[in-house]
């Protein structure tokens, strides 16, 4: 499987990850603010510091979204599903269709608003890495059909 055949996931997933990233920093920011108030430092300094730290996290998280998105690729090969993702630790995963036990297509509230779905295929191994986030709704359904077709075809041999 060469890199050229791998395709990126839907760009709208960046929006999803950005929102998730901001929501994820909320508890952390609150924690930092509380620390700033509790610690024996002038209140103004504490609040400003807390806001600064919160901002760093938010900006950092948002910056990571772009990098994460650029590194996400997948391909529906003839016999295997190929995923490539990860920023610090880059991972290339291959899951042959004939091992597929079931295929899940999931869309959370945020994903529904953006018209996205995520597709997960399970094998008999819990360690299998075969979950593609940020797929266009129709594309996700199409992929599911194709994967199931192939899984079925091989099992019928």
């Amino acid at each position, binding site marked *: *499987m060469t890199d050229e055949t791998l395709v990126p996931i839907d760009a709208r997933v960046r929006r999803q990850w950005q929102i998730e990233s901001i929501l994820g920093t909320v508890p952390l920011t609150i924690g930092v603010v509380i620390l700033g108030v509790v610690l024996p430092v002038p209140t103004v300094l504490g609040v400003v510091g807390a806001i600064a730290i919160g901002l760093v996290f938010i900006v950092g998280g948002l910056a990571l979204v772009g990098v994460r998105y650029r590194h996400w690729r997948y391909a529906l090969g003839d*016999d*295997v599903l190929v*995923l490539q993702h*990860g920023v*610090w*630790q*880059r*991972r*290339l*995963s*291959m*899951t*042959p*269709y*004939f*091992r*597929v*036990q079931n295929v899940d297509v999931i869309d959370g509230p945020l994903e529904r608003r953006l018209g996205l779905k995520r597709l997960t295929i399970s*094998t*008999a*191994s*819990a*360690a*299998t*890495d*075969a979950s593609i986030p940020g797929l266009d709704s129709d594309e996700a359904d199409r992929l599911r059909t194709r994967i199931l077709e192939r*899984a079925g075809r*091989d*099992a019928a*041999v």
Partner: protein
Amino acid sequence: MTPPFDPPTPGPAPPDDDQTGPAPTGDFAPPNPAPTGDPAPTDSASTSVPSLGSPLTDVAINETTPGALGSDGWRRRHPTSPLINTIDNVYRSIRQGWAVIIVLALRGPVVFVSGVAVILAALAAWTVVSHLRFQYRLVGSELQVRSGVFTHQTRTLPVDRVQQVSLNQKLRHQVFNVVDVGIESAGGGDEAEIRLSVLTEAEAEAIRTRLTVARQRATPLEPGTPLPPPTLAVEPTLLYQQPTRALVKWSLANSPFLLVAVLAPLLGTAGGLVEDQIFDRFPSSIVGALVAIAFVAAIVLAAATALNVVRYHDLRLTQSDDELRLRYGLFTRQQVDVPKERIQVLVENLTVPGRIAGVVGVTAHNASGTTGGTNTYLPAVPQADHHDVSDLLVPGLALRAPILRHPAAALARSVIRRVVPMAIVAAAVIGLTRSPWALLTLVLPVVAAGFGWRAWIVLGHAETSDVVIGRAGVWGESTSFVRRDRVQSASMSATWTQRRRRLATLQIDVAQPLGSVSIIDMAESDARRLLIEITEPPTQSASTDTAEIGATSDSAPS
């Protein structure tokens, strides 16, 4: 367990209620041969196991008989089940509810005795009612269990999903000649999928045999192919018997108290030198203290060793048909039956104590959910034999490819990964204390470098047409053999530091509680090639349902 294949006498027959179909009597009643759509001729199968006159046989073989799916065929466990299960429940209650017992005891003897009596009575009553509700039967290729006092539950397990059958016989079981049977399919938690506690030995044996026969018949046959000859009633062949010497040596070396035994005399010397008051009561001389400590240490060591020796006493691996059976134990007797084709991964574990004793631990993992000790585990196989023993479990491991070390870049990474944290610790200690003694911490990075080098020496992989082999460890080593035809999926990953050195970690996912086997720091090109190779679907496979765990390709007689 006593003779492996007793002619199963219809023991104290459990009360069979509401029989409408052919009554399961002790005699072998030939079923109505009505093989509709069943490629396996029913009558030939039924004649194949005539020796199993156990009542269970009738229903099991009667799978195509109309009426067999009715209420008949349901069986209860052995009548001693309530007694034995009450004992089990009491043990469990004491473990979990000891606080209650203490509270009762503090309220005085009357409250204590009456409280305990009430609890005991409740436990016993519950167990009896559960026992009466609990029924099982083998119909066709399904094992069915009805249970539950308030919530009624019927569990059905297709026999071709059975991963392993284990028979457990503690002393209290041996008194009544009964066994605790655990039947497991893939996945699940720590508890066996179906537990039949307790059955007579003959009944357990009959179930085991029926499961095997039913599974063989469940595997699709070419139309017109005669049923495989019934080899089940044949005495199983002994494949391997663990030498007692090896077991004792391993137990001795493996005892955590060995260290204590070695160190105790030294500590004793130190203690004796300062005339510690602890030793006042003993002979006050140093020699006397030493002898006393050595004596205690020897007893502790002997006890710890004896525990292991008793647990794995007389371990034998036998095979009948394609079923492997492992049995061991002096007081608590364990039997684990694993269909050979169910084995996913084999691990050879050479620990440091194992090195001292010259033995290797061999574990064959199947896909069952039990993470506890019921996998096929041979704790102490002499190093000279272990290739052959592994070969018995996963054919093809007797002659194995030599393990290849990973590139020099892996050595660099192995050393740096261990040295850097230690160097930071040393620098911090030296910087903070500024004492000349702190310079001693400089030993840490040097030792870490030694560990890194040693880990690289052990690290390696190899491949054959059947298995992918990965080895890792530092002073001990663990070698995993992953069957290629059992690979579910795989991935390679590389952190930034690995990418810089063109290294990658290959992760092979298998259907097994461990989840996956990882081989770290392979050459990136090797990892990529292997990744693609092991995730290729089998070419021109004759197997029909490779997607199912373990239920593969053994349809074609080889």
